[in-house]
């Protein structure tokens, strides 16, 4: 396990795949030398003083530093989520630490109150509807961006991110003000239509990535073998893109399911999405039942991620290969 990205880092990213790694002395020419000469090496002496290859009890210093840094930062990143799971099994209702026992009482309370179950069902309904809308729209848009040349194509590509760039609370209020004119606030239809908007950036991105990874020479082969455009699409292109579309669907589902800022504006009497119910309960101080609900949500999301990973590789799905 080589943990430090040292001089030979990137061997695993050997792009041409022939296994020889980057050529070590291939490029000692050109711009890099010029940059080195024209820049003053103010820090050079200080940097030289640090010995990166020093070993501490047989482990190189650089590696120790990296492991420590990664451990701290990743702990920080996942701490709130892990802690929510943790207190959902804790009998104390003060979120106390260390725990004074183990209980499933808070999970029992989810099942006992019809309120939480109803919210789960509501969230599932509008999330699925919003996902269907988002996928229908995003797949055609992504296909257009990936396959066709037209004016403003790059602008459209960049604009698919817009719903993520505007603060969600503002978008939520805007959608409430607009949709209530048509009676689309406080019901499932409004929630579905509104949340599809925030799902499209993720969906478009996943499908576009799948399209860029798709080898188009297969399509040409099908055409050369006599298939027409529709047949080629049905039997070649569509099956190849399907994992990308399913990944997009799962991401869209998760994003709409866990969205609070827009759902909180479009909720209504009897139509309380899960994040909104957590939000309103927390406003009254909350209880460990929220932790149990959060844990259920985390399990749902993790399951979805595992499915995506199996299907496609979640990292690849967002374009980070």
């Amino acid at each position, binding site marked *: 396990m080589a943990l430090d990205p040292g001089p030979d880092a990137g061997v695993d990213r050997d792009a041409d795949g022939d296994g020889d790694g980057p050529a070590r002395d291939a490029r000692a020419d050109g711009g890099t030398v010029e940059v080195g000469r024209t820049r003053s090496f103010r820090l050079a002496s200080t940097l030289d003083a640090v010995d990166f290859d020093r070993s501490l009890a047989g482990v190189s210093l650089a590696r120790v530093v990296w492991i420590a840094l990664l451990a701290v930062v990743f702990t920080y990143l996942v701490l*709130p989520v892990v802690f929510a799971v943790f207190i959902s099994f804790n009998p104390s209702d003060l979120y106390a630490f260390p725990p004074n026992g183990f209980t499933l009482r808070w999970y029992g309370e989810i099942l006992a109150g019809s309120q939480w179950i109803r919210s789960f069902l509501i969230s599932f309904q509008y999330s699925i509807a919003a996902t269907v809308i988002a996928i229908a729209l995003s797949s055609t848009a992504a296909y257009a961006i990936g396959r066709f040349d037209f004016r403003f194509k790059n602008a459209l590509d960049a604009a698919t991110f817009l719903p993520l760039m505007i603060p969600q609370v503002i978008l939520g209020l805007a959608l409430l003000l607009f949709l209530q004119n048509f009676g689309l606030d406080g019901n499932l239809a409004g929630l579905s239509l509104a949340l599809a908007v925030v799902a499209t950036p993720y969906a478009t991105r996943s499908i576009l990535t799948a399209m860029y990874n798709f080898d188009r020479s297969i399509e040409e082969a099908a055409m050369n073998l006599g298939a027409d*455009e529709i047949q080629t699409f049905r039997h070649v292109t569509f099956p190849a893109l399907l994992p990308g579309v399913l990944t997009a669907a799962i991401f869209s589902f998760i994003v709409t399911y866990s969205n609070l800022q827009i759902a909180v504006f479009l909720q209504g009497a009897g139509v309380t999405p899960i994040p909104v119910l957590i939000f309103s309960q927390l406003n009254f101080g909350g209880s460990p039942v929220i932790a149990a609900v959060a844990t259920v949500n985390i399990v749902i999301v993790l399951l979805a991620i595992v499915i995506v990973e199996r299907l496609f590789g979640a990292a690849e799905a967002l374009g980070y290969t």
Partner: protein
Amino acid sequence: MSDESARGVPVGADAETDAGTGGVAGGLHERLRAFIQRHKRESYAGYILAGPYLLYMGVFFLVPVAYMFAVSFFQNIPNATMTPGFTLENYVKVFTTPLYTNTLYTTVEISVVSTLFTIVVSYPIAYFIVFSNWAYSKALVLLVIAPLLVGNVVRAFGWFALMGSSGALNTLLGVVGLRYTLLNTKPGLVIAISSVLMPFAILILMSVLYTIDEEIVEAAYNLGGNRLQTFVYVTLPLSAPGVVGATLISFVLTMGTFATAQFIGMPQVPMLAPFIYSVANTDLNWPLGAAMSFVLLGVSLLLVWLYTRVTSLQHESDGGAI
């Protein structure tokens, strides 16, 4: 278009080999195919496909935002109604109420600090995932994405429980003999917000780090640079666009923080988004909420513009060497 025309076979040539089996389905197939063949090379073909998406985004994204802009000039009538009109009193109210101006100031302050903190903490992670040859470094991407997908409320709740006066952090600090409750303080809010922003920042930084040509880094090593030198003089300058991009997105996202701000900051450290919510949803003063939204948006855009100005000036004074 270019790739369509690059095909060796003329489009019409395979017409008679079509497997369409007649009947209604066959007729549909023929008509659809004829439609595709007639339009696929036209410059508007992309618009036909992207049409539904564009229409939907127009109706459910652009129009609502534009409508809210109009509403921000409407007259509010207490108890849930408003009359169309043109008045600036909502904006005047935002800028003359000390509560709102102080909140705006705090929002900017928290956003700047959180953004800087986020970038500093996220960079090593992105760097490691991209450049390490550790077999499981790709799995770390999942670990980065997972908190993002779990949602803000759950994480806000986690921090809320951790930071409370009887929470785990206080217990741990108590062991060292410290008494300091992070809940409802600025450091606490920055810590909580940054953990929400980190996945976004890491993903953006990664996408830029991936584009760095490894041979340049290799060359730096071959020329005798040690790891830190190579990083400071080669990798870091090359990743500057990613740092700028991640900073912008983090900043814009923090300005609109809602759940975290509500539970970790309010009311001692107020931010604007919870106020927008309470003004619109509790007081039902929609015009004021709309005006506050556009003030928030305007201030964000102004600062983003200033930042891009400053970074582009800096780039020019570097002579664009990198």
